[in-house]
């Protein structure tokens, strides 16, 4: 067992994909010579050459649009958006083409491509460096949206994403880049579309994905002191969503809190809450609650800790699950 960071795992996944499949290309802003501002593509240009890993001019719509044309013609582009807020210039390409090409052509033209973006907050980044934009993509039919929470998943889900026949938005929780696990790569590739129970429990279910999984696990740990035995489900793949695993857990525990960093309004957390409330209606002892970012622009570094869901706030929500009714 080696100690591996999430950044290393993603780097390794890209390297292995480049090595195994000559159709794979990695490009974006500063991903070549520099190896990316987070060093995720470090060494790839040197090892696989400038034709396989390279820098582009500074234009995100151009990057994604070019990837569309490449994917149409037999390549498997993996592009990096430097931060997820800097993918917004590419929004039209993503929504109107990336998401729709297969459907538009009745399945004749598919777009096997991956758009990677470091996402989420908690790193003390100035404005525009801490957005969580998964809701925009999750709401757009045709996109596959994946957010790993562990080092092993970062590797295996990225490998799965590169091999996936459809375009994948791959959201890398940037504050976990330097988090480490004992894991030897390559790990067996988990298929896209399966949630996982990270921790079994009987009293209530915490549902989370990406950077919030750690918060949920820490909250579950802390909840033991309060006498609550909490289950934690890691969604992993937002689209397609593994409803069955989520529903089964909440039907069993009868209570649920959804934890996510993005502003809560009209969000992925709204969706998870709505569907659990609907599908677990008869099993619920309390309403499904949400702990999300506030409905505000992402705050400055010195204020972000107020905004981010933390253990305390999750425990407060758990406490509000009407235990007296039980």
């Amino acid at each position, binding site marked *: 067992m080696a100690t591996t960071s999430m950044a290393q795992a993603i780097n390794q996944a890209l390297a292995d994909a480049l090595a195994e499949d000559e159709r794979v290309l990695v490009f974006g802003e500063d991903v070549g010579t520099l190896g990316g501002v987070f060093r995720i593509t470090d060494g790839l240009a040197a090892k696989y050459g400038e034709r396989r890993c390279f820098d582009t001019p500074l234009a995100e719509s*151009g990057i994604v*649009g*070019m990837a569309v*044309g490449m*994917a149409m013609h037999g390549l498997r582009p993996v592009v990096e958006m430097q931060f997820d807020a800097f993918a917004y210039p590419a929004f039209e390409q993503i929504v109107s*083409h990336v998401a729709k090409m297969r459907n538009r*052509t009745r399945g004749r033209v598919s777009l096997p491509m991956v758009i990677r973006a470091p996402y989420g907050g908690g790193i003390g980044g100035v404005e525009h460096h801490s957005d969580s934009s998964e809701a925009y993509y999750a709401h757009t039919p045709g996109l596959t949206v994946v957010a790993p929470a562990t080092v092993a998943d970062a590797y295996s889900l990225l490998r799965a994403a590169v091999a996936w026949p459809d375009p994948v938005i791959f959201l890398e929780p940037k504050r976990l880049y330097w988090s480490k696990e004992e894991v030897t790569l390559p790990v067996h590739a988990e298929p896209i579309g399966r949630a996982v129970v990270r921790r079994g429990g009987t009293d209530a279910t915490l549902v989370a994905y990406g950077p919030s999984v750690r918060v949920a696990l820490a909250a579950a740990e802390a909840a033991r002191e309060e006498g609550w035995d909490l289950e934690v489900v890691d969604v992993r793949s937002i689209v397609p*969503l593994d409803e069955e695993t989520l529903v089964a857990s909440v039907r069993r525990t009868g209570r649920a809190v959804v934890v996510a960093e993005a502003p809560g309004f009209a969000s992925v957390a709204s969706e998870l809450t709505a569907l659990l409330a609907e599908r677990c209606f008869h099993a619920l002892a309390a309403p499904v609650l949400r702990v999300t970012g506030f409905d505000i622009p992402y705050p400055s570094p010195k204020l972000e800790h107020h905004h981010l869901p933390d253990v305390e706030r999750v425990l407060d929500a758990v406490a509000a699950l009407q235990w007296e009714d039980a």
Partner: protein
Amino acid sequence: MATRSKAAGARLLPSAEPVRFIEADGTPVARRGLPGGPELRAAYRALVLGRRFEQQATALVKQGQLAVYPSAHGQEAAEVGAVLALRSTDWIFPTYRDSVALLTRGVDPVEILTLLRGEWHCGYDPYTHHAAPQCTPLATQAPHAVGLAFAAQARGEETVALAFVGDGATSEGDFHEALNFAAVFHLPVVFFVQNNQYAISVPVRRQTAAPSLAHKAIGYGMPGVLVDGNDAAAVLSVVGAAARRAREGEGPTLVEAVTYRIDAHTNADDATRYRPDEEVTGWLARDPLARLTAYLTNSGQLNVDVEAAVAAEAEELAADLRTRLVAEVPPPPRELFAHVYHRPTQRLRDQAELLRAESTAPEGS
């Protein structure tokens, strides 16, 4: 950035006047460079077929058979010339306006009209014809052409990618990004701007203050060429040269074809609200089909037999289109869920089942 000299730049500027081989009345400007008989007769045939197709499509709109039709009447020489200048393995990236280009590429007219008939978003197989789906979001197809050219080059092909772009669409950010990427990566792309003088109601002088759209090329370090878009011979030659450059590894070219949209933007548009009739009349006198016909006839390269044969072919195309189009049925509703992903998600399977159940439920239940 290669060199900083003014001269280095000026070399990339377009000529003051559009390249023209044949005057509006059919008189050749010069013989040098003029494409030969077989090539021009092929263009003639495509022009006739294209125009007949357009007329038929317009009639079908009136009959309620098409949801909408954006006509390229007046622009046929640009449409036809650009496509015939390419190899059939070269890719084209057409817009909603470029149905004649697709017809010239050999796409089944019924499949071209699938989109406008409202049955599906694209009726033809892009791979069969090396033609991307007709693109509606303006300029967004331009980076696709760049990416395809990149992939073709990476795969060692000689493929060229040609992106059709409207004058209005040159104002979009994607136009800028695409040209820049093509130039920086030195890719085999031809950006073919049909300046038909209007973006719906907005005239090109409100679209740009530049001396010409072709002048934009220098800002990317690629050559810009102005061509008379109503002269099929000139378009054939200019696009042919651009494609040759691209194929020989000399990078992208920006071509501006100066032409005119004779009809309204679409049947839903009322062009009298924004342009005078005289303007249209003036451009009708520069009709691309009449021009080529006159030149070919005057120079003895077209006789009545050929003319009659092509006319008959055009009528047959129209008749066949009418018959087959009305017989078309839209895809079954379940197909709505079939192509969103490589296989439907559980959620989509549930939704498909809901729809199926509805349609099989007894009326009024």
